[in-house]
């Protein structure tokens, strides 16, 4: 299957999902955005990887979203409202985040042509997708101290990196280990979300 036809939709998916993750104040939308993001990542990695390997990335990403979602439900059902406390930002905050996202997009679009020449065999769509994810992920990390959002930011950064890395390395072991890291990060994120509600050591 030729995924080159889907590069533009993949880019649109990535831009839409990262913006959704960044500006959304509702955790469900953040996780839905993350799950949609992995569809874009799947298409862009499938340009260089076999469809089986790229599917592995998609599945790992969706499992990560599920794990985080279950953890959030568990944490909120245990009477804590720490999530809401930590994520109080006003509508003007969302506008500020949106403007920042536009700024990141502009930087990525202006730098992408140069980066294409640095990495052999990479396409413009992969560079744009990869760096938008990295940029938005880093911005997201700078804006939050909430464990779920931090892990979502890290997963975005890693996804962006994996798109770039897929162009240069097609080893199954690397793909497997990166998928394991995605799942590991999700598990750690879930642990950090649930940790305050867990039974203490004593």
């Amino acid at each position, binding site marked *: 299957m030729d995924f080159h036809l889907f590069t533009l939709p993949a880019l649109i998916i990535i831009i839409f999902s990262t913006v959704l993750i960044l500006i959304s104040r509702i955790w469900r939308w953040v996780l839905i955005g993350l799950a949609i993001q992995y569809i874009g990542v799947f298409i862009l990695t499938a340009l260089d990887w076999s469809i089986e390997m790229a599917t592995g990335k998609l599945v790992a990403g969706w499992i990560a979203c599920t794990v985080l979602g279950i953890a959030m439900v568990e944490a909120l059902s245990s009477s804590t409202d720490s999530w809401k406390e930590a994520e109080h930002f006003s509508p003007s905050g969302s506008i500020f985040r949106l403007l920042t996202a536009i700024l990141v997009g502009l930087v990525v679009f202006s730098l992408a042509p140069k980066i294409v020449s640095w990495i052999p065999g990479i396409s413009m769509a992969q560079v744009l997708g990869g760096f938008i994810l990295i940029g938005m992920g880093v911005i997201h990390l700078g804006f939050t*101290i909430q*464990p779920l959002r931090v892990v979502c930011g890290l997963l975005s950064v890693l996804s962006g990196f994996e798109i770039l890395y897929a162009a240069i*390395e097609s080893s199954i072991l*690397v793909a497997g280990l*990166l998928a394991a890291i995605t799942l590991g990060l999700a598990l750690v994120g879930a642990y*950090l979300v649930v*940790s305050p509600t867990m*039974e203490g050591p004593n």
Partner: protein
Amino acid sequence: MSAPLIWIVIPGLVSIILYFLVKWQRLVTWLGVVVGLGLSLAAWKLPINEQLTIGPWSFKVIDTLMVFGRRFILTNQDRPILVIIYILVVFWWLGSLSAKPGRLFTPLGLGIVSLMVASLAVEPVLFAALFIEVAILLCIPIICPPGKKPGRGILRFLTYQTIGVPFILFAGWGLSILEQNPNSVLLPGQVMILLAIGFCFLLAVFPFHTWIPMLAEEAHPYAVGFIYFIIPGIVSLFGLSLINKNVWLRNSEVVFGILRSTGILMVIIGGVWVIFQSHLGRIMGYAVIIDLGLSILSVGVSQEIYLSNPTSTPYLDIFFDLLISRGIILSTWALALSIIYTKKNSLDFREIHGIIKQLPVTSVCLFLAQFALAGYPLLAGFSARMKLWTQIAQTISSYSFLAILGCVGLLLSGLRMLFVLVSDDELKTWRIEENNTALTFLIISILLLFVLGLFLKL
């Protein structure tokens, strides 16, 4: 049987078994100690790639383990490092009997160590970054045990360490390209930049050092001390192995220049900021930044020494002296902090006024550990620092004053802390409130600080 099976797979499996036994905390700790001692003894006595005969049995420990086409290699040259790593980790686990950093400390600690050793052994080198990342993920339950809310420091630690990994992976790809095309003009520069950024994140180099003091305020001091020791310690060993394996890196003046500048920057920043800290954990954090800076500086100056006289000084001996002394001193320091933390539930200066009258041995231990890391004579850190200062003075004299400055900052901070420990408004009476286990470990630690200081060769 292969060496990676003994020093990577077996501790990994044991850590999983220990995880299921966490209900029996003391048993788990002692099992960890026994396994760690066995592994360090094996690393000391068991030659690799040589036929061994024990009674009627004959066997050979080979150096390579193949996993999915990738090689894990541990040779005879790696055995001293394995001895150092496992014996120091045993020291940490023994201390945990008194410090009580949490049930997961020993099982996850053993898992972290096995993953970090795997990162040193794996080829191609890019896979090391992935093992380091998994080890970092395992650190999280140690510093944020169940029931505790994760703070900013924990999240920042996770963030910085995770962001560092992709840079190392990309650099690994660049290194493999360079092996095939050594005449490339542009690629070495790019690889160097990627490595520099990656190691800045992983080794908490300024400005990515902020998680170190923040973590000390949020987590159990003993767990934090362990993370301070194991993660940067083995990442720096990984960095050294990269330099050793790649001739162009080893011969590059730029690389060693960057190392020297980075090291001195960390020493100065740590040394200045530690003076103004009023939290015992944060002081330990800045002391670690200073020590890491000295370690990086020792690698930076090693090229000058090596090039001027390759036969004279053993290459990088100061780096390993610093690593060993850091392991011992930090565990002592973290143990003392844990005892104070258990007693006062805080490490802030406001809460510990006059604590020397309640916890005299702990206070002495704390004071000695800080002075040892500052390089005070007769204590464990002195000989390594003395050698380093001498060599800096001989090679790059302009750096010698700055290198000492950081340690002076740590000494001043130690004096400030001592004033807080002894100043008592309530005129309490003297009594020893440490329990027998704590006293035993504290006294052994103090003796070790002096023994290492007196007997490590100058």
